[in-house]
């Protein structure tokens, strides 16, 4: 079955059968890559980044920075680069047209056909992608930490990752997801991007977006699904632990807050750049590749601090050429609790603004920290029980990342020794 992804290009899996891979990697020069590059190798190989088939060369990076497209004109907002030390390139004598083996923690991961070796001005990249060069922006820090040399070229996975419980149940490649969507008879799929354990504010965001996406479709047999796509990447102290994020979203369906036939939870590997509007475009592209037709964008999507206006990530969709994206943004204001309405309601509907009680991540974290079960209008009791179970089982007693969790947590995926 042929599936079409971003840029109307076929979703291609670049994975070599193990028996062939064992022979192919023998004697290749090796480069051990960072966690981000490893995750992006996997993304590229399974088609999450269609039409990319490898790490970008200079022309693509230039086009992304200058025009928000690839060099062929396809809409693209974030550079995907493999960074290495120039010293290492020189020492190992890596040059264009070489094939090298990328390893992660010493284990074979992928081969890369070197097409381009180049340096890049980091400040230019940060300014173009993030609109910032201030080190208080985590995306700027990430770019500044990149090694000095980039290698562009096609990537082929030689050692598929083995996802570990509980993540294995939520790992679907773009092709897997397309099959799932077809199986369920979904004509429309609305994506929810998350790195949070859901409170009812998130729940209503999803429900509202489902109504929008379902729109004019017949309602006797539902044909619209919600894909909750949890972002798995580097964690900071105080973030929710990954296990709690995926299992609590899943709990919302298991406990019936979403029907079995309209809701699915999956994971994607991605290191957030916090690029606000540019990241919103990227998230749309990623979910287009997963088979989604709609993508919800709330307030301050993928933003950080006060670097972006809360609705920059909505407005950027007005600026892209028509037809450059086959997924529709669903733009959402805020859901809040209104004591007058007596319910969780929408800021675009409720006229009691001065009485509103806003969902605040900080407040809810504080309730969880104190082990005080929130009222069910804020936080579902089954989700509370699940988050506490995860704290015990995976978080060394805490639902939030601690130093210990960051140092000793179980891996999301492992690679075999081949």
């Amino acid at each position, binding site marked *: 079955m042929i599936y079409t992804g971003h840029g109307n290009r076929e979703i291609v899996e670049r994975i070599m059968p193990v028996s062939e891979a064992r022979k192919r990697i023998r004697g290749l020069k090796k480069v051990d890559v960072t966690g981000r590059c490893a995750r992006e190798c996997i993304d590229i190989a399974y088609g999450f980044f269609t039409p990319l088939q490898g790490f970008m060369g200079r022309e693509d990076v230039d086009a992304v920075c200058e025009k928000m497209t690839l060099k062929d004109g396809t809409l693209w907002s974030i550079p995907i680069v493999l960074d290495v030390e120039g010293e290492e390139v020189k020492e190992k004598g890596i040059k264009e047209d070489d094939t090298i083996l990328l390893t992660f923690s010493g284990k074979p991961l992928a081969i890369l056909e070197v097409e381009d070796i180049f340096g890049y001005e980091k400040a230019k990249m940060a300014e173009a992608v993030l609109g910032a060069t201030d080190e208080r922006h985590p995306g700027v820090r990430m770019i500044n930490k990149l090694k000095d040399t980039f290698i562009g070229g096609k990537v082929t996975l030689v050692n598929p990752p083995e996802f570990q419980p509980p993540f294995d149940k939520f790992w679907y490649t773009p092709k897997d997801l397309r099959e799932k969507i077809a199986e369920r008879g979904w004509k429309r799929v609305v994506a929810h991007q998350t790195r949070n354990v859901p409170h*009812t504010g998130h729940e209503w965001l999803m429900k509202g977006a489902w109504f929008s996406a379902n729109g004019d479709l017949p309602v006797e047999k539902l044909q619209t699904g919600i894909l909750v796509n949890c972002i798995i990447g580097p964690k900071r102290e105080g973030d929710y632990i990954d296990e709690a994020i995926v299992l609590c979203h899943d709990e919302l369906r298991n406990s019936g807050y979403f029907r079995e036939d309209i809701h699915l939870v999956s994971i994607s590997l991605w290191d957030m750049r916090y690029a606000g509007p540019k990241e919103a475009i990227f998230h749309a592209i990623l979910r287009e590749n997963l088979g989604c037709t709609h993508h919800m964008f709330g307030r301050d999507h993928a933003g950080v601090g006060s670097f972006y206006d809360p609705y920059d990530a909505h407005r950027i969709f007005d600026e892209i050429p028509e037809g450059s994206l086959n997924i529709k943004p669903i733009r959402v204001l805020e859901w809040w*609790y209104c*004591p007058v309405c007596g319910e*969780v309601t929408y800021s675009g509907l409720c006229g009691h603004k001065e009485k509103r*009680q*806003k*969902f*605040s991540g*900080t*407040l809810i974290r*504080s*309730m969880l*920290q*104190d*082990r*005080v*079960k*929130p*009222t069910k*209008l*804020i936080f579902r009791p089954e989700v509370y029980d699940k988050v506490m179970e995860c704290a015990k089982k995976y978080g060394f007693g805490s639902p939030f990342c601690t130093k210990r969790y960051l140092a000793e947590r179980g891996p999301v995926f492992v690679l075999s020794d081949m």
Partner: protein
Amino acid sequence: MVEKYPINIWINDERYEKLRQAGLADMAEEVLAGMRVIKLQCTEKQKDEILRLYPMAKFDTATTKSIELIPSDAKEEMFNLVIRRKSLDVIDEFLKNVKKSG
């Protein structure tokens, strides 16, 4: 004005019922969808003592302007004292108890 160092104690439906029975329901301030909070005010000396007893705790000057990250069992104990004494003025007794048992 004297500097205040509150400790926020979350009040869900279950705790609210106990507060009501202790005649303290009026002290709880609604924050979000039926979740309420009571504030136990500390003096600077009490604040310092709490931060010494619980090294992970800190006074959040930026957002909540309250003493945060006190272990949940300690806060539970503070709430229980509030109910037993029918008063929000329990920090001294709390500190005395901790020192006695510790």
